[in-house]
């Protein structure tokens, strides 16, 4: 293990802000995209007309 301790790992040799700032934002973007994809699918499924809607005017 090259880091020795969790503090050293988080410090990233003094570049912690830049390294973790990159990884954190990337993670947030992917999680947000997956969340948005779920919402879009739910909305798309909800838009499909129900058989019970057939009698009513669109």
């Amino acid at each position, binding site marked *: *293990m*090259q*880091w020795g301790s969790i503090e050293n*790992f988080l410090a*990233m*040799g*003094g*570049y912690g*802000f*830049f*390294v973790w*700032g*990159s*990884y954190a*934002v*990337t993670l947030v*973007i*992917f999680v947000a*995209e*997956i969340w948005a*994809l779920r919402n*879009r*699918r739910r*909305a*798309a*499924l909800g*838009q*499909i*007309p129900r*058989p019970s809607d057939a009698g009513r005017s669109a």
Partner: protein
Amino acid sequence: MSSVTASSGFSVFRYAAPNVFYPLAGRLVPLFALLAAVLTVIGLYIGFFLAPTDAQQGDSYRIIFIHVPAAWMAMFLYVVMAFWASIGLAFNTRLSSMMAQAIAPTGALMAFISLWTGALWGRPTWGAYWVWDARLTSTLILLFLYLGFIALQAAIDDKRRADKAGAVLALVGVINVPIIYFSVKWWNTLHQGASVKPGGSSMADIMLTGMVVMVFAFWMYAIAAVLARLRSIILERERRAQWVLDAREQGKL
């Protein structure tokens, strides 16, 4: 029901029909998502625990394991998006245009990630988050091309007209991709040249391995995200089609 899908033997072209592609994409999404997760774990393990600290850049270089994959995917996805958009334009195939529409948001996010991680890498290595350098500027234009494509499609109500307008924009913008790629050669830029090129690499093997694994991880993620979005787009556009109604009754949506 099955007579529609099982007619006239096997042909890859049958997958061009949204009703055939929809269930296929549904089986592929979890597969590619799993591949992305496994490759990410392997890639980050190599990147943070096997790859040593760089002699010149210290540990700041570890941003490369997401920066390069995101930048490559941003360029690659744009070309794929323009390809499908142009197929949709030339042959009037609905699914091709839907594919282009499904790629754009993921491509835009990849472009943003490459710019963001590049800024956080640029500060410690060049002393600036942003410079108006050829590589950075052309990548910013790539992000704007994606956003323009998305905005243009959203602004036109008639979906097929939106597809055609989007295709023209996507095709014109393709010229930007080789400009990004060769920008570090054609102009004097702060951005370093290509570390990986035909005939060899300037990186240590273990660093390169970690980066390549992460490229595949991002690639698999992008495929999963695009196919998942494509399924929603198919449902949005075909929600009144009989196959959608039938599939719902059978619980197969």
